[in-house]
């Protein structure tokens, strides 16, 4: 038997088998890759070698709210002897104290009906010479926002040596002011 045909057969068989092997290897590679990705996604690691650091739970998160009395009892941590509390007033014993409420954002504006909205009147000749009218003549509804429900008197209390006083009642204020101005002259 001649050498060339044998060599030819070997070369042909080798090339065909390599082709099959190459395609098969690539398919296996892709299958393995996909399997690996799925396994990674399906099974998260059982234990993570790390220290779990969690923040201290907030009262709000636990569904609790601090009452006014509890707030009043809070004292600063002291190194030495006990310090007096800074504010010992209770809810009922001091009616002049300001209301301790958080800042509210106003509610969404209520839908205005036609009767609640008044158009600005057209300026008459007499008014034309006077100061221009404001366009914001909007009737507020009976339902005011929570901010507006807030007691205005207590909101703008003035703190004096005698405690919280209504600024409108502080009639001696004007005379005191004059005295101060005179003194500084």
């Amino acid at each position, binding site marked *: 038997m001649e050498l060339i045909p044998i060599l*030819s057969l070997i070369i042909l068989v080798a*090339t065909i088998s390599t082709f099959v092997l190459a395609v098969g290897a690539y398919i296996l590679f892709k299958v393995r890759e996909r399997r690996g990705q799925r396994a990674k996604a399906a099974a998260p690691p059982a234990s993570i070698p790390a220290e779990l650091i969690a923040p201290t739970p907030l009262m709000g998160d636990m569904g609790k709210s601090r009452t006014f009395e509890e707030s009043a009892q809070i004292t600063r941590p002291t190194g030495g002897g006990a310090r007096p509390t800074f504010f010992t007033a209770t809810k009922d014993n001091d009616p002049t104290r300001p209301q301790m409420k958080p800042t509210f954002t106003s509610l969404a504006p209520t839908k205005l009906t036609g009767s609640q909205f008044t158009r600005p009147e057209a300026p008459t000749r007499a008014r034309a010479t006077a100061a221009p009218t404001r366009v914001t003549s909007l009737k507020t509804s009976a339902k005011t926002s929570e901010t507006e429900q807030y007691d205005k008197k207590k909101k703008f209390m003035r703190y004096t040596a005698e405690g919280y006083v209504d600024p409108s009642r502080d009639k001696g204020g004007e005379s005191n002011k004059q005295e101060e101005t005179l003194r500084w002259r």
Partner: protein
Amino acid sequence: MLMGDSQLSSDSLRMGVRHFIDPAVGAVAGNVKIMNRKKWLTDLQALEYIEGLNLARAAQAIAKMVNIIPGPIGFFRKAALHDGGYYSSDTYAEDADMTLKILATGWKIDYEPNAISYTEAPEKLHQLLKQRYRWTRGIIQAIRKHKTYIFNPTINFNNTIVLWMMVFESLFWPAMNIFGNVFFIVVGLIYGMSSLIALWWISIAILDIMAAIYCIAAEKEEVRLIPYSIVYRVMFIIIIDITKAAATVEEFLGIEMNWGKLERVGLPGAK
């Protein structure tokens, strides 16, 4: 620049930095060799690195236009890196991308065969295919990123030549090789294997052996790698080229890919 799984030879740094005496040289590519040999797959890769990668880089270095500064060893001038915009993470072949960016800014890139870095090669076929799949898609991504230079040689002529070489290597060459082998099989099966085709194949094999002898002599490498050139031609290249072709198709189809993780066995000198 040195990869974590590579080791430098004692003279590597001295040999590499000497090229920076030329102010036009922005980077130097080193010589990558396989460390974990004595296995048929890693020996084939050792031959591939010597014959396929280093010989090509030596040729490109004549024009100082090396197209890829390999990850295991690369020397960069700081200004060249700065001009190129540093490494990007938008391709899977960031070394090819960085090289193209440096070339685009007008710097020259040289090759130093005596700056040797020994790297670890995949020992399993699955790992090898994974590596080549990533390389192929990464290089295509880098080419696509710099496609402006492919069709417009007026911007940077050097970069245009380099990019066309990369297009040939990554797209045309694998396709031609696969087509040639399929043609060979079909002719052999349908028309019978004539003595002419067998002689043609043998002549190609002799050419491969001659090239291997030359490269191994030039690099002062192991002589035992020479017979691998036959297996390299018949088997290794086909396997790699089919993976390259499939990866190219997947890249153009936009199929999702990830970095994956190559298994490392550790270098003997690293212990």
